[in-house]
């Protein structure tokens, strides 16, 4: 048994070393790709949280947008440092989510109807961002957003002119997201969340405030979306309302569902594979969406629970083919 543990630890260590050092060998294009993968993992993991509470957020990108705009405006209009505008973005996104979630769930708007509400909110957000030129710069958006910089007195300034620094930052964000999600799930909070998802009446009857749990899960998930938004704002140096479409949320949902929401690894796998796929399919040029679509269909057809269902599928195949595995 002890051996197994050491193997597990060494695998993780190897993975960590790979993630830390391999990019040094890559050129910018691949580093950019890995950054996108990292942020997609953050988005997929965060959209999964409200699933665990039994609700569906079809407006996730809007919270990414709220985070992006918050961070962008704080940086360009008030000159705040990235290191403050990032958490500010998370807090604002969380607050908006908390307010919406609280009033909606308290009014018994749940399930389907909650999903529609988030969709309507997201579209309204996008339209408001496009129309409110004074605040958001309208369709043009916010431009010339400064990149982050680490200024510790006594040490040389670390600026983010190289993509590599963004990569390490993205890695840290993924790590933190994973940690928080993992802790939430394996704690009493996670247990109560599961209870709320499976039966809200039984949960209420044992004094679990179902609305509170759903709102918290929704708010935390949206906070991380806000973080991702803020990162992108300072990475691309601009924010525009056009990115925050339903299409985008559907892709984030895809990452989570394709990988499988049954486990934390699902969104990680899903985001990684589905972000890389279009790159590999680039050779196919115009056929890329078709192949992407076909892979989605075939995978869910074979593995309705997503990629994390693969283990069970293999076990059942083995049992079927060989009698008893």
């Amino acid at each position, binding site marked *: 048994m002890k051996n197994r543990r050491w193997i597990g630890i060494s695998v993780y260590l190897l993975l960590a070393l790979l993630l830390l050092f391999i990019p040094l060998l890559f050129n910018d294009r691949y580093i950019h790709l890995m950054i996108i993968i990292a942020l997609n993992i953050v988005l997929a993991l965060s959209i999964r949280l409200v699933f665990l509470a039994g609700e569906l957020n079809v407006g996730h990108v809007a919270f990414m947008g709220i985070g992006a705009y918050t961070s962008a405006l704080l940086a360009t209009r008030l000159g705040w440092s990235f290191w403050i505008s990032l958490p500010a973005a998370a807090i604002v996104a969380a607050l908006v989510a908390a307010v919406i979630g609280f009033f909606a769930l308290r009014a018994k708007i749940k399930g389907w109807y909650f999903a529609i509400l988030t969709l309507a909110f997201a579209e309204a957000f996008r339209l408001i961002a496009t129309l409110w030129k004074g605040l958001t710069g309208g369709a043009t958006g916010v431009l010339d957003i400064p990149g982050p910089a680490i200024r510790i007195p006594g040490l040389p300034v670390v600026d983010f002119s190289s993509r590599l620094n963004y990569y390490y930052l993205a890695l840290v964000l993924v790590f933190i997201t994973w940690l928080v999600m993992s*802790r939430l799930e394996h*704690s*009493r*909070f996670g247990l109560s969340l599961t209870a709320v998802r499976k039966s809200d009446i039984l*949960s209420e009857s*044992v004094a*679990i405030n179902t609305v509170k749990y759903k709102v918290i899960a929704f708010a935390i998930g949206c906070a991380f979306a806000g973080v991702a938004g803020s990162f992108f704002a300072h990475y691309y140096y601009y924010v525009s309302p056009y990115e925050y479409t339903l299409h985008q949320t559907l892709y984030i949902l895809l990452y989570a569902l394709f990988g499988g929401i049954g486990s934390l690894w699902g969104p990680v796998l899903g985001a990684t594979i589905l972000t890389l796929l279009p790159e590999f399919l680039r050779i196919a040029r115009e056929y890329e969406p078709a192949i992407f679509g076909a892979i989605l269909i075939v995978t869910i057809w074979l593995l309705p629970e997503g990629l994390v269902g693969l283990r069970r599928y293999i076990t059942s195949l083995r049992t079927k083919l060989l009698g008893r595995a």
Partner: protein
Amino acid sequence: MTLLATRGLTKFFGGLAAVQGLDLNVNQGEIVGLIGPNGAGKTTVFNLLSGFLSPGKGQILFKGQDITGLKPYKVAEKGLVRTFQLTTLFTDLSVMQNVLIGCHRRVHIGLWQDLLHTASVRRREKEVEDKALAALEFTGLSNLKAELAGSLPHGHQRSLALAIALVAEPEMLLLDEPVTGMNAQETTAFMGRLDSLRQRGVTILLIEHNMLAAMSCCDRMVVLNYGQKIAEGTPAEIRQNEEVIRAYLGHGEVG
């Protein structure tokens, strides 16, 4: 001392009065049976008491406090816990997990502490685990703790529902037809447990269709028909009450 009291409790569904002008009292340490033919409104009363429905008129007082219209989780927090007529469990979780969830009221762990998984959290979780095991022991489910709740036979599922309610350490239990579908043996065992609970100081209000079981363990009974209280008294008195007999016969049922 009156633990639970309702005054003029009324609930309309559309134009129909499901419960009308109900005055109910349950004293501490009693086991009271709420009986009546099908459709008399008994489960509606439970839904009103536990906060799943809000009354049109009337008041509900628990431990002297007005709990009318409170949300279900708040009512449960005050110590009034109910079970459901149709077996309601977390079917694809294990028996142990089911009961652990029920401990929520007694565990009080803040979100930050939970995230950080401090030593005090671990200690409290251990205490909670012990309580859960004790409840399983009490309901005779200890050796089934790893089984999936949905895979248990019916009688055990009803017992599990009781265990979940018990770990919340309620002062009063509302049990909705707890022994339905149990055989004679299981029923006697269950009723015996209710008696133990009473000795521990838990007050019980019970909806039951099985007359023999109800009469054997209840101190008092309240009879509903068409949403109204038609009789109240000891089992002996109720057995001979003409109105009650008429109500049941009128519904084509024999007590």
